[in-house]
């Protein structure tokens, strides 16, 4: 391919099995690095429990929702409340290693199971929002950079500023007012029609997609604004590099150069920021889920926060961090695929 000749690759590109091996090495290193991170999250969790007013037992039993003395005695023994603090921490870590996050009496099931059944909805919302944010942001950034200092550039900048400043929950409510209440095009909230859609599995999927549109826009447009700005400045920067001039000099058209040479290299900062923001996307879905009554982890968290169901709140913090770490690893692998020069530390 002509593009390969002028791509800014000083060392020979790794191919096939070599690349796969490098990806596996990266994966292994990342997994090892994740262990101290998770430990840190657990210790912060433990500190929060220790700092809270009231005893640890009161917290884990969520303010008198447990009254059975046998259960209390069991909890007392499990968490070793007579032990010194460091021993309690070790026991807490040991319990978490067995995925024992406690029991949620509100859902009447173990905490891990309560979170697990809410996780798919949240991941669906996260993935669709990130997809929207990246595709809209990259497209708008490319348009703005190709028509730099024109009307289109200003229009994109103003839109990006607007969505960067608007609180996502407010944007969501305003979209409900417009598209659901006034126009009646889209559902107000929830994930599917009550009682389920009629007409087979395909209708069900379409029904979920219809419910997904507004929450995705409300959550994704904020990030789209960030990626637009980053993409625009990174496109302008890459366009000044020598290899782009070479590509132009050998007679490729402007569009060909933009798509094959500039775009791919300009994507790297976007991917970097995407990795850093995984945590905030997950957190942002908490608010959006409560606006649209989307039945995900955010709704569960909101419910647990309101009812002071601490075991669930703490469990979501640990599992949320785990999801973020996993997403970060995925982003690193994408980064490596985009830019084979980089051996990520």
């Amino acid at each position, binding site marked *: 391919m002509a593009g390969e000749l002028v791509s800014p690759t000083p060392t020979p590109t790794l191919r096939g099995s070599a690349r796969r091996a490098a990806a596996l090495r990266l994966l292994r290193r990342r997994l090892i690095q994740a262990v101290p*991170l998770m430990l840190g999250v657990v210790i912060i969790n433990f500190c929060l429990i220790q700092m809270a007013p009231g005893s640890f037992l009161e917290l884990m039993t969520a303010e008198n929702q447990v009254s059975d003395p046998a259960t209390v005695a069991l909890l007392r023994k499990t968490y070793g409340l007579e032990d010194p603090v460091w021993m309690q921490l070790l026991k807490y870590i040991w319990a978490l290693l067995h995925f024992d996050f406690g029991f949620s009496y509100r859902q009447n099931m173990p905490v891990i199971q309560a979170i697990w059944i809410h996780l798919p909805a949240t991941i669906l919302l996260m993935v669709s929002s990130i997809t929207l944010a990246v595709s809209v942001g990259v497209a708008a950034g490319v348009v703005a950079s190709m028509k730099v200092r024109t009307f289109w550039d200003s229009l994109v900048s103003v839109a990006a500023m607007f969505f960067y400043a608007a609180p996502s929950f407010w944007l969501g*409510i305003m979209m*409900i007012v417009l598209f659901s209440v006034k126009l009646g095009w889209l559902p107000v909230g929830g994930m599917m029609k009550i009682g389920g859609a009629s007409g087979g599995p395909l209708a069900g999927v379409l029904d979920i997609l219809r419910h997904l549109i507004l929450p995705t826009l409300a959550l994704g447009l904020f990030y789209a604004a960030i990626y637009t700005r980053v993409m625009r*400045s990174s496109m302008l920067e890459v366009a000044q590099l020598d290899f782009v001039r070479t590509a132009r000099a050998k007679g490729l058209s402007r569009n060909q150069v933009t798509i094959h040479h500039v775009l791919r290299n300009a994507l790297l900062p976007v991917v970097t920021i995407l990795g850093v923001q995984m945590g905030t996307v997950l*957190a942002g879905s*908490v*608010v959006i889920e409560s606006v649209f009554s989307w039945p995900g982890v955010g709704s569960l968290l909101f419910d647990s926060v309101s009812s002071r169901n601490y075991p669930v*709140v703490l469990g979501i913090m640990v599992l949320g961090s785990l999801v973020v770490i996993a997403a970060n690893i995925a982003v690193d692998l994408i980064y490596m695929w985009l830019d084979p020069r980089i051996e990520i530390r």
Partner: protein
Amino acid sequence: MPRFGFPRFEFVGRFSRNRGALIGACLILIVALMAVFASVFFPIDPLRIVGLPELWPGEDPEFPLGTDSLGRDILSMIVHGARATLLIGLFASAVATVIGVGVGATAGYFGGWVDEIAMRAAELFQTIPNLIFVLTIVVIMGSTLTNIVIAIGIVSWTPIARMTRAEFLSLRDREFVQACRSMGMSDFRIIVSEILPNALPPVIVLSSLVVAGAILFESAVSFLGLGDPNVASWGRLVGDGRQLIRSSWYICAIPGIAIMITVLCLNLVGDGLNDALNPKLRDR
């Protein structure tokens, strides 16, 4: 003042040539004045019922922005809410700046294993989903103003720490620092009185952007109903109006617009300061 005269004049000139930043700064000033003189303009408690419920903006000249579901003056609530919103944003940003500068300066100056630990800690705080962290802290420690401010500060310090660290890394081996060292000055004094003043300008720009982020955090927390019950910030007003979007959606819309304009202006000012401080990057 001859000592600062020229560069400072140039800085002001560059800043004011940026029209967006100038407009942003003016609007922020207006919001700040609103916050300061709220009780002069609207001496009546904003949470008192003063008129008919659900009056649309413009329907009654006495209430230019209308009244909410209970008949409280929305304009008065917005003006009084400005105080809560701005104060929370400023204090949360101050907490984040103190933590971030402390961690970043120590990491950048000493390097080695101190740096390693500090950067791992920053990574840790970036991993925990920020709003979930804030909600957890607030729900366990209690929904008071102080706890909310501290919680937002705790999740917002990492960019400031990274920036401070980078500045310290580039400054710590300059001649003037080596001169101080050879004079036998203590590490603490070198950090605080020699390097920090030089490292501060870009950090201050970042802090102004953190104020904007903090306002968004606070509004989300209040919107979810976990804000301090004694404080009527703009986020809480949006949350309160949420039940009535079918009939009176303006109750929700107006405080949201106030949040958006304030955050937008803070971002514009931050960008303007950034451009004025780094003229080389301006045309990017």
